[in-house]
């Protein structure tokens, strides 16, 4: 008799509690800028997968292409208001929006927000040209700013001016849960928004910690005649200049001929 060897029993299915996750999609991933462009509205839908249904918060951070910027301060010299020497800030996005389900400081503490660059006061912008690293009181690598104590004023001014131009904004009511686990965010892109590669980062916060992150890409690009002219101006600048002058002189000549007849 051949003993029947019983197949070993299948190991019991151990169900580790699945980690909570977030998923999201943009309704448009390509914004085409043509002559009629007056801004665009982008809608983002997403879902939170969490079997335990813990209280969740969503933060959406949209960044445009980086644009180093120069800023100067007006100072009074002998009764005249003059610009100071300009300061270069690096790492500043050309466009920045943060939208969340409630006020950011209610969602998480300083460290995670700073780490993610979530919120206007946590944007990682700095003026490296104005800084030097030195050793102070035996502590190495201390960043000293030549701007001195009012460095924060400069930084705040960058954010304030960008906000005024409609390029930076924070909306603590920008993300809404429309159904159980399903959320919706709406982002308005002004006509001044820079051309280029954008990223939307969707972060799921639970208990003050970022537990899941998704990145979605968005492209803002010129289309049609706008694009053709732009490419022409960049690729063949001298020909473009000549053409624009010929158009101008031709128009002037045409008008004078037309008026002579009339």
């Amino acid at each position, binding site marked *: 008799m051949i003993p029947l060897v019983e197949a070993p029993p299948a190991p019991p299915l151990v169900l580790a509690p699945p980690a909570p996750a977030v998923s999201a999609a943009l309704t448009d991933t390509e914004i085409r800028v*043509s*002559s*009629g*462009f*007056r*801004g665009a509205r982008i809608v983002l839908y997403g879902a939170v997968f969490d079997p335990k249904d813990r209280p969740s918060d969503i933060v959406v951070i949209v960044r445009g292409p980086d644009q*180093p*910027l*120069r*800023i*100067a*301060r*007006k100072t*009074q010299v002998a*009764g*005249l*208001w*003059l*610009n*100071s*020497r*300009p300061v*270069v800030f690096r790492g500043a996005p050309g466009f920045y929006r943060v939208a969340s389900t409630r006020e950011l400081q209610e969602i998480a503490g300083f460290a995670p927000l700073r780490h993610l660059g979530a919120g206007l006061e946590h944007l990682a912008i700095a003026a490296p040209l104005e800084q030097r690293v030195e050793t102070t009181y035996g502590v190495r690598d201390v960043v000293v700013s030549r701007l001195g104590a009012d460095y924060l004023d*400069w930084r705040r*001014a*960058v954010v*304030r*001016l*960008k906000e005024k*131009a409609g390029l930076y904004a924070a909306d603590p009511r920008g993300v809404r849960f429309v159904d159980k686990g399903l959320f919706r965010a709406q982002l308005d892109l002004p*006509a*001044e928004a*820079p*051309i280029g590669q954008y990223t939307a980062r969707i972060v799921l916060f639970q208990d003050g910690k970022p537990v899941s992150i998704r990145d979605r890409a968005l492209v803002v690009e*010129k289309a049609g*005649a*706008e*694009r053709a*002219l*732009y490419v022409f*101006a960049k690729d063949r*600048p*001298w020909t*473009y*200049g*000549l*053409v*624009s*002058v010929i*158009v*101008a*002189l031709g*128009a*002037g*000549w*045409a*008008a*004078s001929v037309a*008026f*002579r007849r009339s």
Partner: protein
Amino acid sequence: MHFYLPIAEVSVNALLLVVLGGLVGFISGMFGIGGGFLMTPVLVFMGIPPVVAVASEANHVAASSVSSVIAYSRKRSVDFRMGGVLACGGAIGSFIGVEVFRWLRLIGQADFAVSLSYLLFLGVIGGLMLTESVGTILRRRSGQPPKPRRDRRPALLYALPFKVRFPRSRLYISVIPPILLGVFVGILSAVMGVGGGFILVPAMIYLLRMPAPVVVGTSLFQIVITTSLTSVLQAGRNQTVDIVLATLLLIGGVIGAQLGARASGRFRAEELRALLALLVLLVGLRMGADLFIKPEEAFVLMTGATR
């Protein structure tokens, strides 16, 4: 109707730009100035980046000026030879001016240089022209004989070498003063983003002593050459000419210039000059006022990134 400008990267009201172009063109045809000193501040105020405004404006000025030059040359009131000599100087000047402006932008003092030169040049020229022309008008109204024009021309015009005959201006003078004048106007026009007519017109009247009828046409002729050159230079070197913006402006501009050139015949020369002086003075004071008024916002973002 809104239009998205491909180089300026902003959306603007097209109709408004055409109307503005027309108004400035009218003034340009009437007074023989390019009109850049009016248009550039308006464009910047509308939110167009200053560098793009300055460069595209040169293109618009070229268009409206060519339109009125043709109108004036039919009346035989353009001294092409004098205009050519001035333009030679202007070409040298705008090369220098473009470099000066780059350097000013780099050290962050471009705004200051622009405000100051508007205040200084427009203020002084406007003020001088206004007192002179109002004086003439008042004397005529009160029935006094006009002040005899001092016909003695500055000796420097004759003492210098390279004398050239300018038949249409009835002058036989050295080319050095007009060339220097051209260089000066060229530098200024690159820095201020203007054609420079508001300096050329009085300089031709008071310094070169050219006969008044040919001054306006000649100034416009010089402006056509300098602004065309500036346009190509700006496009080639800085890529800041927005052809859509320029086209919108010049549609109105060329028509306005024709109407302006016609309207100029209906006014007396000194009344025309008083009006121009008032306009120049007002723009100069408005631009210069920024230097003295405490700014609401202590910080300014600078365009043109970090080059």
